[in-house]
């Protein structure tokens, strides 16, 4: 597609339920990133993929969070047993590659998650 596409754009879920967020990167981009942004805050790195592998998962806040990427394209971020503190905007981004500095990273519009 023309840009990074994320779905759902908005999700309201009950505490304790699992949620899945989807990201479709720009076609041809091998690197994919997940960030989280709480209201009025900066962006917090969660995880990135180079192809289907995730060399850096250091930003995942707990073992309730997991992500996968298949076919070197679409990625899903799963949050199990959601808590109210998980409420945030989950932003996906992609770039042509990871290994070279200077590859522009493009963001999607985000998935707004509210846990009630």
């Amino acid at each position, binding site marked *: 597609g023309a840009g*990074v596409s994320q779905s759902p754009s908005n999700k309201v879920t009950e505490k304790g339920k699992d949620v899945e967020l989807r990201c479709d990167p720009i076609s041809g981009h091998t*690197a994919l*990133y997940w*960030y989280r942004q709480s209201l009025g*805050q*900066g*962006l917090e*790195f969660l995880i*990135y993929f*180079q192809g289907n592998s995730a*060399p*850096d998962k250091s930003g995942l806040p707990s073992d309730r969070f997991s992500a996968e990427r298949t076919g070197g394209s679409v990625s899903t971020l799963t949050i199990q047993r959601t808590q109210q503190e998980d409420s945030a905007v989950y*932003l996906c981004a992609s*770039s042509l590659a*990871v*290994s*070279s*500095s*200077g*590859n*522009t*990273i*493009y*963001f*999607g*519009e*985000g998935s707004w998650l509210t846990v009630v």
Partner: protein
Amino acid sequence: GESVGLHLPTLSVQEGDNSIINCAYSNSASDYFIWYKQESGKGPQFIIDIRSNMDKRQGQRVTVLLNKTVKHLSLQIAATQPGDSAVYFCAENRGGRETSGSRLTFGEGTQLTVNP
């Protein structure tokens, strides 16, 4: 810890004036810097970038200046317009070896308000 931060959380200017948004970074190994603009309810939008081997880079109505001696980055917006009102984030990208990954570390953001 190492981080990227901004000097001012808010900046208010008159339409037509020039705006300067500042950013300080602490990681001397960072070799690539980016400015993003984020409008309310949207994902970050790439504005301009600069590599560490440069001091200045110009785009359309925007200029980024990099002072590696004092680890300072600034974004200058010429003839600021109401449509420029948004939160502006600076980010550093360490790049480097593929095994170490490449990801963005964001500052907290500056809210720019342009008064008509």
